[in-house]
């Protein structure tokens, strides 16, 4: 048996932690883009589009991320395509995070007073123009704290991808545990790494929220 020092454990976790960071960033970017599209559907004038968005959100928020992961993993395989774990992981997390981001942002869009919509429609703006020039710039400010808060959920969500064999922080922790028989130390260290990634984001989100509230209270 190879002997692992504490430093070996930390170094290996840190190396695997890169993939947690990469997967989180990719998910945040792609999930944000898809989330924006669903937000447009969710707030559009067409009832059919609104329903599509509503059902999408209900399905992805009402089922476990793990099941979604398995469905994507085995679902793509049905077409005879060999699915690498990173692809299934990235795709599932993107679909999942888009549903939450769309719903978070919907709250922010709805917080913009009705008059803003009416005034911009009087100026003969179409829906996309209203969103682009009037609603989104205002909603963005309100949306910033909860969006950063949700990025913490994305980072934590990546842990589940270890189950289909994507080697990130959690998978590395399990592998190292199997090699060292030191679960207490290894999982505590892995938890610590997640904490180091997430805590600053949580604090920043709280800080922004407080700042926003302070600006609006009289």
């Amino acid at each position, binding site marked *: 048996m190879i002997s692992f020092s504490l430093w070996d454990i930390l170094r290996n976790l840190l190396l695997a932690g890169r993939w947690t960071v990469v997967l989180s960033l990719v998910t945040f970017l792609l999930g944000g883009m898809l989330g924006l599209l669903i937000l447009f559907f969710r707030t559009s004038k067409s009832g059919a589009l609104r329903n599509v968005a509503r059902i999408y959100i209900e399905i992805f928020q009402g089922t476990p991320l793990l*099941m979604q992961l398995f*469905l994507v993993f085995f679902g793509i395989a049905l077409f005879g395509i060999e699915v690498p774990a990173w692809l299934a992981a990235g795709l599932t997390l993107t679909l999942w995070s888009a549903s939450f981001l769309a719903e978070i942002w919907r709250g922010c869009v709805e917080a913009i007073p009705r008059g803003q919509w009416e005034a911009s429609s009087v100026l003969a703006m179409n829906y996309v123009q209203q969103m682009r020039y009037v609603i989104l710039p205002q909603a963005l400010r309100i949306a910033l704290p909860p969006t950063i808060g949700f990025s913490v959920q994305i980072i934590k969500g990546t842990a589940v991808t270890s189950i289909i064999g994507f080697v990130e922080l959690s998978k590395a922790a399990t592998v190292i545990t199997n090699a060292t028989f030191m679960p*207490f130390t290894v*999982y505590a260290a892995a938890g610590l790494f997640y904490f180091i990634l997430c805590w600053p984001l949580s604090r920043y989100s709280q800080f922004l929220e407080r700042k926003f509230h302070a600006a609006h209270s009289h």
Partner: protein
Amino acid sequence: MAYQFEFLSTFDYSGVLVKGVLTTVELIAVGGVLGVAVGIFGAWARTQEPRWLRPVVSAYVELIRNTPFLIQLFFIFFGLPSIGVQITEMQAAILAMVINLGAYSTEIIRAGVVAVARGQIEAALSLSMTRVQIFRHIILRPALQKIWPALSSQIVIVMLGSAVCSQIAVEELSFAANFIQGRNFRAFEAYLIATAIYLLLAILLRQILRLIGTRFIFARSST
């Protein structure tokens, strides 16, 4: 080559599915009640006397909210036996859920507690109510009323999160799906059915929580 769907063979294992659903329900029933109880205690500790409890509870909340549930579960299930505490899969799963939900609900309930108007508390003090009475009747109930939707959502999220408990061999719904696809090699169908059941459970749980809210929490205090 078109794929032929084959759902029937999954239903041959409906006994396994039912057992899985019951275990998931058991997890969220026990974990939910105890988790909210921890949350109420946590909210009390973070807002009332004694003051030394506050940083302890804050550290607990921050640690749990900023680490994945899967790591918490593994830490408890694999970590505790290595320091001499023996624990079954089910106990580990419930403990992890209680600790996890406890941290989130502490934060949610605290937000409600903080929002209770000071005048209400002063009025109660002038009626010479004790601190415990004030917390129970004057602070907690209106606080729960305010944050009940947020708390309900969190309970649903924890129920869905319980799917990863299959990784420590708790025989809940996702474990049942794993078991079935291992037997009939119909992975997609097995997971699709399990996912649909989860969706139904989530919708049902939300309705039940709404009912609990209107029956037991909103009814008596609304005047």
